[in-house]
C-alpha cells in the first residue's frame, strides 16, 4: 500500500512538471516562435502605457532574452525558493512558493491565489456534499424502482439538470429566491471561521445551483452502475445466502457500484478547485475561476500561468486521493 502510494505520488509530481512546462511554453515560447519580439512580450507584463525603462526592466527581470530552458528553470526555482522582483521603483519580495508577480495588479500571484482559494473551496465543498448525497441516493432509488414513476421523473429532472446551464438556473434562482421572495440573503462570501451560519446561508444558492448540475450526472451514473451491479453473479450469491434485500443492496451492490462514481467525483472536485468559473461569475463570487478569467481577459500572463499550475495541482492531488481510495475500496487494485 505504501509503495503503491509512493509510485502514484512520484507520478503526480512528474505530471505536474510536464503540465507546468507545457503551459510555460505556450505562454512564453509560442509568442516568440510566432515572431513576437521580447519587447512586445515584456509590454504585456507592464501596466497600461508602460515607459521604455519599465519594459527594459521587465525584460531583464524575467530574462526574456535567456534561452527558454533557463527561464523555465527560474520559474521553478522561484516556486521552491521564492524570489525578489525589482520593478525599477521598488524591490518586491515574493516568498516561496512564488508563482510570479502580476505587474497589472501589483500583487504576487501566490497572494492572489491564497486570497481567492477559500471562496472556491467553500463553494466546491458545499456543493460536492450536496450533489454526492443527492445524486447517489436518487440514482440508487431509481435503479431499484426501475421503470417506476419515480425513476422516470428523476431521470427527466436529471436530464434537465445536465442540459440547463448554470447561468440560467443560477440567475433564475437568484431572481426568485433572493430578489423576489427574499428567502435567502444575497450571495456573498463570509469566512467560515467568523460565522459559520452566515457562511452557509450566503452560499446555499450557488451550492444548490452547482450541485443540481452534478447531482443530475451522478444520479444517472449511479443508476447505471447499480443496474449493472444488480445483475452480477455475486448479487445472486448474496441473495442465495438468504441475506435481507436491504443488506444485498447496501453491502453488496452499492459498495461495488460506488467505485466508478468515486473516481469521477475526485476528478470533478479537483477540476472545480481550479475554479467553477460559470458559477463564480453568475453569483459574483471572486474565487479562483474569477481570477483565471481576469488573467486571461487582461493578458496577465503570470496570473494565467499561476492559476493553471494551481488547477493542475488540484486535479493531480485529487487524482492521488482517488487512487488511494480506490486501493482501499477495491482490494484487487492493491496488488496490481
Amino acid at each position, binding site marked *: 500500500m505504501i509503495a503503491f502510494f509512493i509510485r502514484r505520488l512520484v507520478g503526480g509530481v512528474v505530471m505536474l512538471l510536464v503540465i507546468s512546462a507545457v503551459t510555460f511554453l505556450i505562454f512564453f515560447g509560442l509568442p516568440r516562435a510566432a515572431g513576437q519580439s521580447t519587447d512586445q512580450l515584456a509590454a504585456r507584463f507592464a501596466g497600461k502605457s508602460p515607459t521604455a525603462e519599465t519594459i527594459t526592466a521587465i525584460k531583464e527581470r524575467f530574462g526574456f532574452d535567456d534561452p527558454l530552458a533557463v527561464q523555465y528553470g527560474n520559474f521553478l526555482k522561484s516556486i521552491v525558493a521564492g524570489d525578489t522582483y525589482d520593478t525599477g521603483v521598488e524591490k518586491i519580495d515574493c516568498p516561496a512558493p512564488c508563482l510570479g508577480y502580476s505587474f497589472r495588479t501589483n500583487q504576487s500571484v501566490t497572494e492572489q491565489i491564497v486570497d481567492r482559494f477559500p471562496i472556491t473551496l467553500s463553494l466546491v465543498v458545499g456543493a460536492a456534499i450536496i450533489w454526492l448525497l443527492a445524486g447517489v441516493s436518487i440514482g440508487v432509488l431509481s435503479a431499484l424502482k426501475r421503470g417506476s414513476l419515480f425513476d422516470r421523473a428523476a431521470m427527466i429532472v436529471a436530464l434537465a439538470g445536465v442540459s440547463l446551464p448554470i447561468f440560467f438556473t443560477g440567475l433564475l434562482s437568484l431572481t426568485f429566491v433572493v430578489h423576489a421572495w427574499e428567502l435567502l440573503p444575497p450571495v456573498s462570501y463570509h469566512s467560515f471561521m467568523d460565522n459559520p451560519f452566515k457562511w452557509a446561508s450566503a452560499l446555499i444558492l450557488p451550492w444548490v445551483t452547482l450541485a443540481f448540475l452534478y447531482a443530475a450526472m451522478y444520479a444517472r451514473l449511479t443508476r447505471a452502475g447499480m443496474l449493472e451491479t444488480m445483475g452480477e453473479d455475486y448479487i445472486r450469491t448474496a441473495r*442465495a*445466502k*438468504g*441475506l435481507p434485500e436491504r443488506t444485498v443492496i447496501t453491502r453488496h451492490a452499492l459498495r461495488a457500484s460506488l467505485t466508478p462514481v468515486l473516481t469521477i467525483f475526485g476528478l470533478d472536485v479537483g477540476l472545480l478547485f481550479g475554479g467553477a468559473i460559470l458559477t463564480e461569475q453568475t453569483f459574483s463570487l471572486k474565487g479562483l475561476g474569477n481570477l483565471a478569467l481576469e488573467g486571461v481577459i487582461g493578458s496577465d500572463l503570470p496570473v494565467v500561468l499561476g492559476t493553471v499550475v494551481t488547477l493542475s495541482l488540484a486535479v493531480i492531488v485529487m487524482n492521488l486521493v482517488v487512487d488511494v481510495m480506490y486501493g482501499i475500496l477495491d482490494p484487487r487494485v492493491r496488488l496490481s
Partner: protein
Amino acid sequence: MAGATEHTRDGLPEAPAGTDTAGTDTAGAAAGGGQEPPRAFLEVRDLKIHFPTDDGLVKSVDGLSFQLERGSTLGIVGESGSGKSVTSLGILGLYNKRNSRMSGEIWLDGKELVGAPESEVRRLRGRDMAMIFQDPLSAMHPYYTVGAQIIEAYRVHNDVSKKVARKHAIDMLGKVGIPRPEQRVDDYPHQFSGGMRQRAMIAMALSCDPNLLIADEPTTALDVTVQAQILDLIRDLQEEFDSAVIMITHDLGVVAEVADDILVMYAGRAVEQAPVDDAFHRPLHPYTWGLLGSMPRLDRARSERLMPITGTPPSLINVPSGCAFHPRCPYRELNDGKSETERPELVEVEPGHRAACHLPLEKRREIWTDEIRPKL
C-alpha cells in the same frame, strides 16, 4: 401467441394421465389449499416458471415434477436453455415476482415454497437450501474477503458473535480442504486459484449445514484434475451432512460419477427420468441417446465420429408443437405425425424409470440395442 394458448389447453386434459405416476394433477395452478402432502424430502410438482418479455412468454420451465430424498443425488442434464438453472434458482426462490410467473408446488421438508411469502423463503435460503454456482470468481464478491463472505452467510441464520462465526468459517475452509485456513480466511477471492475458490464457495454454501444443496455446473469452470476433487468433496460432504443434492450439469460424465438418479430436461420439461444405471444402460428417449452420442470417449477410436444431435435447442417462446424434440428427432417419421400434434406424457415404463416419447416402448428398446448402443 397461437402456440401459447394451444399449450395451456393441452395441459388440462393431459394432467390426469400422470395420476398413477407422480400425482402431478393435484397441484394445478392453485398454490393454496387442497394440496396432497409430500412423500419425499424435496418434491417438485408441475413446476412452471415463465417470464413475460416483449417478444412473448418465455416458458423456461413448463411442468416439471420430481422427488428427491435426503442423502441422494439427482443429476439434472440437458443443453443450454433447457431450464436446468432456472429450475434451481426457482427452487431457491431467487426470481422476482415482478418479472416472472411461477406456479406449481415445491415441497421442502414438508413446507410449500411457491405460495410462501418471500420473507419465509428468504429465511430458508442459505440455511435449509444452499447453492454452489458455476463460476466462483464472479459469484463471490470481489471486495470482501472469503472469510467475510462465509461469516456473513453464517451470521444471517445464526445469532453468534463475529468471533464465533470466524472460527466457524476457518473450520469450514479446513473441512473443504483449503490448506492453512486460518490465514486464507483473510484472503480475497482473486487471491485464490480456481479450484480453491470453488472449495471456498462450497464452504460458504455449507456453512449453515443445509439439507438441500444445489450445485449448478460446479465443475464447468475448473481443470479436469480439480473437477474430480471437487466432485469427491461434494460427495464426502453430502455423506457427512446427509443432505439431498441436485447436481446440474451438461456433462454426463459428472452425472455418472455422482448421481443416483438422473433427470433429462428438454425445453423446460423432463423427457426422461431414471436411476443413473438405467439412464446409461437402457435409455428410452431419443434425446438421451443423442446426449450419450455427443459424449466424447477415450475408449473409442478417434476415426469414429461423435453422433451429435442435429439442429439447435428450440426457442422457449415458440416451443415446437407436440413433442418439443420432434424437429430434431431422427425417429419422428415412425409416429405417423403424432409427434407434431400431441405432447407425449412422462410415463413410468419400468420402476423408477420414466420417459416421454410417442415411440412404442418395444421399438425404442430395439433401436437402442440394435442401432445406438453399438455405436457408442
